[in-house]
C-alpha cells in the first residue's frame, strides 16, 4: 500500500566496510521486488535500512513520499519476516502473532479475529496455543509470516524467509507466498540468494554484487537481456556458457568464431549490432545451455566436444562437455528429443558436435563485461 524510494543510499559499517554503494531504486505501490545476489552483496543491509534496523550512512529512503531516515522501525509501518524466524520463544503462537496488535492497543476481539484469520490462511490454526519450540521449521516459518501479515503494514519485507527450509517445503512455501501476495495486495521487498525464487516471485528483480546494483528489471528482461556478464551468469540454471571469441563483420553481416566454428549472428541481435556499428573485435560470447543443440554431424558451424559428465535430470539431460582447448560447456537437452540409441551413446568420452543459433547469443565487452547491445 505504499511506494518505496531509495535515493543514493549508501551504507558504511563501523569497520569502514562499504556494504552498499549508491543504491537507487523506485519501488511502485503493490510491486513485488526481489533483491538477489551472492552472499555478502548487501541485500540484507539494504533491506534492514528500509526497515530502520540499520542506520543509513548516506542518501534517503522514502516510504510513500515521506523520508524515513530518522524514523524508528516502529514508526515506519513495515512488517518483516526474518531469516531465522525470530519468534518470541516465551509466547504461544497466538501471542506471537498478536504481539504487534496488542502494542497497537487494539481490542481483544479484533485481535482474535485477525489472528485466527491469518492462522486460517496459513494453515496453523491447530498450533495457535503451542510455543514456537514445539513447531517444525515450516510451521515456524508460517508463524513468522503470520506475525507480519496481521499488521496491515505499508511494506512487507522478507529476508531469505525460505532459506532454512528443505527443498520440497521451499517450493511449497514459494507457491504460498505467491498466493499470499495476491491476498495481501501490498508492496513487497523480498531478499534471496536463490535465482529461482527471484525469477518466480518477483515483478522486478534487483541483482546485486559487492554492494552495487548490477541490473534492475523484470524476470524476462534480466533473463533475455542481461546488462552484464555477472547478471548473465547469475540468472538461469545451469548457468550461461561463456566463450572468449572473436566477433567479425563481413559486408554488414556478423559472425562469431568460437573454437574454430563460424556462426552467423541472426535476427534482432544482428540488426542491433549493425545499428550500433559495432566493429569486429574480441568479445565474450554467452549462450544458455538450453540454446545449444547436438548436431548430427560435424560441419563448418559446429564445435567438436567431448562428453565429460552426463547428468540425467528426468525431463532433461545436462551434458557437461569440454572443447579441444579444455573450455567446459554445459548443454541442456530435453530427454524427449533423443531416441534410445542416441541416449545410450552419451557416455563419458563420447565425441559430440554442438551448435547454436544466431538469435540466442549474448555479447559482452571483453574489458567492461557490459552487454554490447545495451549501450
Amino acid at each position, binding site marked *: 500500500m505504499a511506494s518505496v524510494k531509495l535515493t543514493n543510499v549508501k551504507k558504511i559499517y563501523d569497520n569502514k566496510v562499504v556494504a552498499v554503494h549508491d543504491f537507487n531504486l523506485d519501488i511502485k505501490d503493490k510491486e513485488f521486488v526481489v533483491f538477489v545476489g551472492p552472499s555478502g552483496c548487501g541485500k540484507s543491509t539494504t533491506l534492514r535500512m528500509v526497515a530502520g534496523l540499520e542506520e543509513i550512512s548516506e542518501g534517503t529512503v522514502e516510504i510513500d513520499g515521506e523520508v524515513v531516515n530518522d524514523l524508528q522501525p516502529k514508526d515506519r509501518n513495515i512488517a518483516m519476516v526474518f531469516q531465522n524466524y*525470530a519468534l518470541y520463544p*516465551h509466547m504461544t503462537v497466538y501471542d506471537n502473532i498478536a504481539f504487534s496488535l496488542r502494542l497497537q492497543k487494539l481490542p481483544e476481539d479484533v485481535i482474535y479475529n485477525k489472528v485466527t484469520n491469518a492462522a486460517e490462511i496459513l494453515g496453523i490454526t491447530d498450533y495457535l496455543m503451542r510455543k514456537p519450540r514445539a513447531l517444525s521449521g515450516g510451521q515456524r516459518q508460517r508463524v513468522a509470516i503470520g506475525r507480519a501479515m496481521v499488521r496491515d503494514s505499508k511494506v512487507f519485507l522478507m529476508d531469505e524467509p525460505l532459506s532454512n527450509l528443505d527443498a520440497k517445503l521451499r517450493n511449497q512455501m514459494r507457491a504460498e507466498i505467491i498466493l499470499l501476495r495476491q491476498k495481501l495486495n501490498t508492496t513487497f521487498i523480498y531478499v534471496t540468494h536463490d535465482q529461482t525464487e527471484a525469477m518466480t516471485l518477483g515483478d522486478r528483480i534487483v541483482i546485486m554484487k559487492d554492494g552495487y546494483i548490477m541490473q534492475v528489471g523484470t524476470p524476462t528482461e534480466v533473463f533475455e537481456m542481461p546488462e552484464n556478464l555477472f547478471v548473465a551468469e547469475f540468472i538461469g540454471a545451469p548457468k550461461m556458457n561463456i566463450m572468449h571469441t572473436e566477433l567479425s563483420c563481413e559486408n554488414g553481416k556478423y559472425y562469431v568464431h568460437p573454437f574454430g566454428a563460424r556462426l552467423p549472428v541472426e535476427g534482432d541481435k544482428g540488426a542491433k549490432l549493425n545499428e550500433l556499428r559495432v566493429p569486429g573485435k574480441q568479445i565474450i560470447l554467452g549462450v544458455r545451455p538450453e540454446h545449444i543443440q547436438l548436431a548430427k554431424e560435424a560441419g563448418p558451424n559446429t564445435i567438436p566436444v567431448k562428453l565429460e559428465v552426463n547428468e540425467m535430470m528426468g525431463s532433461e539431460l545436462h551434458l557437461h562437455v569440454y572443447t579441444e582447448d579444455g573450455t567446459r560447456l554445459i548443454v541442456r537437452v530435453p530427454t524427449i528429443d533423443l531416441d534410445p540409441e542416441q541416449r545410450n551413446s552419451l557416455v563419458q568420452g563420447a565425441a559430440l558436435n554442438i551448435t547454436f543459433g544466431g538469435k540466442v547469443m549474448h555479447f559482452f565487452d571483453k574489458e567492461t563485461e557490459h552487454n554490447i547491445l545495451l549501450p
Partner: protein
Amino acid sequence: MKTRKSLPSGIVMLIVAACLIAVCAPLILWIRHAAAMDSASFMETCQTIVHRIAHPFPIDPDHMGAVLLTILMLLLLAIAVVLVIVAVINLLRGPRDEQSRHMGLRTANAISNTAIHILLVVISVIWLLPFIFIVLQSFRVESTYQVGYIIPEKWGFDNYVSIFSAGSNFPRWYLNTFIMALATAVLQTVIVLCMSYTLSRFRFKMRKPLMKFMLVLGMFPGILGMIILYRILSDLGLTQAHAVPGLILVYVASSGMGYYVSKGFFDTIPKSLDEAARVDGATRAQVLFKIILPLSKPIVIYTILTAFMAPWGDFVFAKYASMNNQLGMNVAVGMNTWLATPSMLFANYTKFCAGGVVVAIPVVILFMCLQRYYVEGVTGGAVKG
C-alpha cells in the same frame, strides 16, 4: 538414572573431590589443634565452629568428640581420594567401548552415585548442624547464657518476646534493614538490568573502554572507599540516626558495575528478537520489558536476590555509618551490641539466637520462592555468558 558420558562425570568427580579436600584438610588440622588445646566434645566443637570466631568461651574437656570428628573427616578425605582415582581413570580411559558400555557402566554409575550421595548427605548434616543448633537455642528459656548441650530443658518463646518487647531496639533495626534491603533490591535490580541491556544491545562510543574500566574498578574491595564515603555521608547528614538513606545510597551507587552476569545472559538472546519486536512496533523499553526480561527470568531473580542479600547481611559499612547510634543500625550491627562484653553475652546469648532466627526468616522465604530460578540463573548466565 541417566547415563552420563565418562568425561564430564570424571570432571565432576574431580571437582567434588577437590572441594572435599579443600574443606576437610584444614578442618582436620583445626580440630586436632582444638582438641589439643581445649578438647571440645563433638557437639561443642560444632558450637565452637559457629562461635569461636565471634567469642571464645571455655568448653568442657572431652577428647572423644574431637577424635570422632577427626575420624569422620579422614573418612571423607579417603572417599575424596578414591573419587580422584576413579575420576582420573575415567578421564584417562576416555569414551568406553561398546562392551563395557553394556556391562560396566551401570555398576560404575551406581557405585559413584551412591558414593556421591553418601558424601553429600554427610556434608549437608555437618552444614546444617549450626543452624539447627541456633534454632534450638533460641527456644531455651531455663538460662540465657551459653551451655554445653543442644536440646533445651525448658522450651518457650521468652527470647522472641523479649526482642520484640517495648524498649527493645530490635524492631527498629529490623525495619531499618528491611527498608534498606528492599530499596536496594528494587533500585539495584532496575539499574543493573538497564545497564546490562544497554551494554548488550547498544553500540556507542567508549562502550568497550567503559566496560573494562568498570571491570577493573570492581576488583578493588568496596571497603577501601569507606572512610571517604563516611565523610561524604556525614557532610550530607546521612549518618548515625539517618544512616538508612545514606546506606541505601552507598549500596545502590555502584550497582551499575554488577552488570556482568546479566549482560552475559542478554548477549545470548538473539538480536533478531529485538529487531522483530521493534518492527512489530515496540519501543526499546517495551523490547526490554516484554521480550528480554521474560526470557531472562532466572537472571532477574538472581539480580534481585543478590541485591537483597548484600544490605541484609552487611556489617562493616553499616556499623561505620551508624556510629553507635541505635536508631541507624541494621540488625547485624544492632545485635552485635548485645554481645559487646562477656557479661552481656552471658545475659543475651539465647536472645541473640532468637534474633538470628528472626533475621533468617525473610531470606529463607525469599530463597524458597526463588531458589529454582536462582540455581538456573547462576549457571544460565555463567555457562552461556
